[in-house]
């Protein structure tokens, strides 16, 4: 096989050690990079061969888990989803995801993001609590109703949109594109009744109207979720709701099971761990 050509790339990595550093500092590494290596691969090699103290977060290495979001050449993106040689043939800067605190080196503290995510109640809420706890049948949903929110379910909570958002940069109470998109996703779900409960968070000041459609969340999203669209549609629904225009979406009815149907045994949900 033909020997792969290696290109020397200089990495400027922004590092921060909470024990010794007051401020992040830039450290330089030179690495021979060949075609096919993602930025995450390069950082792995640096850690293995040059500096074992470098801290970063990753898990799946294939753009599914959302752990490896970083600021690469000034743009927030997934390190495992970015080919190094596509970006540069000489220098690359890598830093922790902005608009979050840095725990260490390339590891941002995503807890505030998961906190607001939890506060938008990203699950089906129904007024008929009885039915929610002990379902007597299935909720019907047409493919058309599914399409209305399906795009926004592909979110992997990587935080890239939060880092790209200029409103997030100055307004710390702004819930951020990720949480707002999830609020819209559940509000629009035909099985859901919880729009009123989510309104407290999204419709107040520092809420969804802090967005002026810079569109960077949608430009940056590695999964094509298009948070900017969800946020605008969420605003539309809030305005309609306020003016009592448009139709109230009636919550999906339960379709009772056929009389001879057998229920599968209930699977107990694991206790909640996030944020507790």
């Amino acid at each position, binding site marked *: 096989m033909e020997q792969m050509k290696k290109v020397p790339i200089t990495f400027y990595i922004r590092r921060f050690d909470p024990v010794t550093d007051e401020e992040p500092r830039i450290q330089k590494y030179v690495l021979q990079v060949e075609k096919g290596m993602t930025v995450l691969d390069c950082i792995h090699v640096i850690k293995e061969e040059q500096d074992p103290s470098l801290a970063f977060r990753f898990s799946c290495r294939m753009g599914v888990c959302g752990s490896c979001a970083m600021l690469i050449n000034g743009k927030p993106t997934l390190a495992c989803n970015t080919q190094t040689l596509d970006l540069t043939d000489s220098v690359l800067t890598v830093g922790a995801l902005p608009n979050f605190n840095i725990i260490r080196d390339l590891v941002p503290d995503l807890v505030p993001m998961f906190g607001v995510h939890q506060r938008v109640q990203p699950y089906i809420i129904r007024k008929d609590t009885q039915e929610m706890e002990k379902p007597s049948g299935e909720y019907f949903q047409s493919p058309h109703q599914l399409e209305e929110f399906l795009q926004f379910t592909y979110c992997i909570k990587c935080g890239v949109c939060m880092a790209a958002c200029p409103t997030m940069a100055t307004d710390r109470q702004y819930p951020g594109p990720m949480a707002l998109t999830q609020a819209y996703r559940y509000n629009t779900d035909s099985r859901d009744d919880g729009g009123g409960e989510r309104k407290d968070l999204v419709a107040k000041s520092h809420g969804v109207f802090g967005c*002026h459609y810079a569109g960077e969340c949608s430009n940056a*999203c590695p*999964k094509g979720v298009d948070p900017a669209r969800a946020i605008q549609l969420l605003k539309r629904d809030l305005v309609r709701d306020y003016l009592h225009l448009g139709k109230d979406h009636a919550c999906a009815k339960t379709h009772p099971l056929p009389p001879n149907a057998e229920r599968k045994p209930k699977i107990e949900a694991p206790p909640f761990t996030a944020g507790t």
Partner: protein
Amino acid sequence: MRETKQFDNHFGIIGWLGGGRWGIERYLYIIHRVAGLGILLFFMMHIFESSVRIFGPESWNAAMNVLKHPVFKLGEFVVYFGFAFHALNGLRLILIELGFAVGKAEEPVYPYRSSLNVQRPLMIVVMVIAAVVILAGGMNIFVLH
């Protein structure tokens, strides 16, 4: 859990400029915000300048004389620019926020197309109108007067 010191990595006001991929809408976002703040500042100056009246006709005339300086002509244009841009871009934002021009949710297929692509024609039309309005105002301020 052990508490450790963290570094606050929020962009702050620089985030209005940095941190993204520099889509054209982001420039509009920045100009829109700066213009909005600028108009607020202008209103406050305007109220201050008008309130000079209560000190009698001399102070009023003195203030009016200061405002004849050519620098204020430029200032007038800047305010007009800010106003025209903010108003027209604001109309675009209102249309978008009412759900026009952002399209419906669609299956994300690579290379991703977003709502930004859907609203771009609207953005271009609005910006052309804004340019015409601003040019006409500039003509009025600098050439005809």
